[in-house]
C-alpha cells in the first residue's frame, strides 16, 4: 500500500535480458559522444547543485573561521567566531528554546496526530471529508497561519482568551507571556503541520493486515492490548521515521517566532535559526552566523543521517 501504484514492478526489468547494441565504428569515439551527451543533460542540474548546495556547505565551514564582510576580503580569525557566539547570552536561550520547542512539538505534535489517525481509521463515513479538512491548514501559507494565531493570541479581542472566558477558565498571556510563549508557538506549529503526519499514519494503519487484529481478538486481547501489541509494532517504522523528520523540521523553526513573537518576550522564543538570521542581517556578523550554522548543521546532519540509514534498511526489509 505504501508504494506508488503507477510504478511497474521491478522484476519487469530483470525478465528481459538486455542485448547491447553492436558497437559501430570507433568504440572510443562513440563512448565519448555518449558522455558528452550525458553531461549535456546533467549540466543545468549539476551547476545548480554546485552553486546552491555544495558550495554553500563548504563556505559555511570556511566563513565560520573568518571575519567576513561582503565587499571586502575576508580575514582568518581562528575560532574567534565560535567563542564570541558561545558567550552570547542569546546563544544559550536560542538552543534551550529550540530544544524545548522540539521536545514539546514531539510530545504534542506527535501524540495527537497518532491518536487522531487511529480514530479516523475506524470511521467508515465521510472519509474523504476528514482527510481534506485535516490537511487544509497545511495548505494555508505558514505566514498566514502565524498571523492568524497572533490575532487569536491577542490579549484584547483574541479568540484564545475568549474561548477560555467562555468556558469559565482563567485567561492566559499566550504568546505575550514569557512562560507561555513557547508552548503557544508549539500549538501553532502543530495545528499547521499535523495534516501531513495524520495522512501518513493513516496510510500506515491501512497497511496492517486485518488478520492480525482478528487473531489478537481470538486470543482475547482487548482494545488497548490490540493497539499495544498489533498497531504500534506494525507501524513502528513509520512512527520512528516521522519522529526523526519532525525533529529535523522543528529544529529549523523560524516563521512562527519571527512573525508571532519577534523572539520575545525576554528572548523566550528566540530559536537557533532566528539567531542565525539576526547575526547575519541585524548584526552584519556573517562569521558568527556561519559558526552557528555549522553547529546546527552538525546536529541536524546527524539526525538526517540516521533518518536516511533507517529508510534504507526499511526498504531492504520491504
Amino acid at each position, binding site marked *: 500500500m505504501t508504494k*506508488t501504484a503507477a510504478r511497474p514492478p521491478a522484476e519487469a526489468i530483470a525478465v528481459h535480458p538486455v542485448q547491447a547494441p553492436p558497437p559501430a565504428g570507433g568504440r572510443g569515439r562513440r563512448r565519448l559522444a555518449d558522455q558528452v551527451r550525458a553531461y549535456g543533460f*546533467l549540466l543545468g*542540474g549539476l551547476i545548480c547543485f554546485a552553486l546552491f548546495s555544495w558550495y554553500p556547505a563548504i563556505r559555511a565551514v570556511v566563513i565560520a573561521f573568518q571575519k567576513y564582510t561582503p565587499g571586502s576580503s575576508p580575514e582568518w580569525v581562528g575560532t574567534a567566531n565560535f567563542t564570541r557566539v558561545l558567550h552570547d547570552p542569546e546563544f544559550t536561550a536560542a538552543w534551550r528554546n529550540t530544544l524545548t520547542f522540539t521536545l514539546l512539538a514531539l510530545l504534542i505534535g506527535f501524540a495527537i496526530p497518532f491518536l487522531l489517525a487511529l480514530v479516523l481509521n475506524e470511521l467508515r463515513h*465521510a472519509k474523504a471529508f476528514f482527510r481534506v479538512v485535516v490537511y487544509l491548514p497545511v495548505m494555508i501559507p505558514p*505566514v498566514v497561519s502565524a498571523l492568524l494565531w497572533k490575532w487569536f493570541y491577542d490579549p484584547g479581542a483574541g479568540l484564545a482568551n475568549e474561548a477560555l472566558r467562555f468556558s469559565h477558565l482563567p485567561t492566559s498571556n499566550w504568546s505575550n507571556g514569557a512562560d507561555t510563549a513557547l508552548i503557544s508557538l508549539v500549538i501553532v506549529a502543530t495545528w499547521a503541520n499535523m495534516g501531513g503526519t495524520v495522512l501518513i499514519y493513516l496510510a500506515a494503519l491501512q497497511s496492517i493486515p486485518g488478520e492480525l487484529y482478528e487473531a489478537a481478538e481470538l486470543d482475547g486481547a482487548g482494545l488497548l492490548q490490540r493497539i499495544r501489541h498489533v498497531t504500534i509494532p506494525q507501524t513502528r517504522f513509520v512512527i520512528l521515521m516521522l519522529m526523526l523528520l519532525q525533529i529535523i523540521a522543528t529544529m529549523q523553526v523560524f516563521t512562527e517566532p519571527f512573525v508571532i513573537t519577534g523572539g520575545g518576550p525576554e528572548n523566550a522564543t528566540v530559536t537557533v535559526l532566528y539567531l542565525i538570521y539576526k547575526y547575519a542581517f541585524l548584526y552584519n556578523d556573517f562569521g558568527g552566523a556561519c559558526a552557528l550554522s555549522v553547529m546546527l548543521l552538525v546536529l541536524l546532519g546527524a539526525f538526517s543521517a540516521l533518518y536516511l540509514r533507517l529508510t534504507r534498511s526499511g526498504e531492504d526489509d520491504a
Partner: protein
Amino acid sequence: MSTRTLVSPATLARPRGRAVYWTVFTGVVVLFAIAFLFPVYWMVTGAMKSPDEVAKTPPTLVPEQWHLSGYSDAWDLMQLPRHLWNTVVQATGAWLFQLVFCTAAAYALSRLKPAFGKVILGGILATLMVPAQALVVPKYLTVADLPLIHTSLLNDPLAIWLPAVANAFNLYLLKRFFDQIPRDVLEAAEIDGAGKLRTLWSIVLPMSRPVLGVVSIFALVAVWQDFLWPLMVFSDTGKQPISVALVQLSQNIQLTVLIAAMVIASIPMVALFLVFQRHIIAGISAGSTKG
C-alpha cells in the same frame, strides 16, 4: 473498506457498538469543525466586520454588517496584485526550471551512464542530509555575489528559480521513477531512430505523468509557502512575494484589512488543494514514507 481494522465489524454491528461509533463519529466531526474549519471561517468573516466590531469583546460570531471594503482595501492599499503576481512569477519559474533541469539530470543519471554518475548521485543525495535552512546564510552570500561571474541575483526572481533546481528530493523521486521504466521500451525507441532527447520527450515523459504531477505540486507549494529565503533575497518591497509582503505590512495596517489580505493570500493554494486533493492526498500517503 473490506479489510478489518482495530475494531471488528461484528462489534460495530451490535447496538452498543453502533451507539459508540456514532458518538465518536459526531465527536470527531465537531472537533474537526472547531479545530480546522472554524479558524478559517473566523478569518473569512473577520475581514468582513467593521474595524470596531472586530475589536469588540465578546466577539460577534456573525458580522453585524457584511463589509467587503476590507477585501477591496487590502487589494489596493497593500498592493496585493503586484505581490501575488511576484509570487506567481517566482513559483512558476521555479517549477519550470525544476521540471527542465531536474528531469534532464535525473534522466541522465538513470539512463545515460555518465562517468562518475555514482559520485554525482551520492553528492546530490548527501544534500538531503543537510537541512536547507541551516545553509541559508552562505547560500545568501553566494546569491549576492555569484562565483566567477560576480553578479548579484538579489531582488531577481532567478534567486528563487536557480536554487529551486538544487532539490535532491524531487530529483531522486524522478530518477527512481525513470529507473523503473522497462529497458526494452527505450531500446525500441532507439531502434526506431529516436535520439536521447526524443526518447525523453516522447517516451519517458509521457510515461512519467504521475511523478511529474507530484514534483510539480511539491515545487509550486514550496515556493508559495516559503518565507525565510524570499525575506532574505528580496529587500526591494516591489519585488517581494505575498508571504514576505504580508509580514512587512502587518505592522501598520488596520486589522480587518490585514485579515482580508491573509484570506486572499491563502486562496490560490487552498484552491489548488481542493482541485487536486485526490492526487495530493494519495501522493502524501504513498510517497512520503518511501522518499
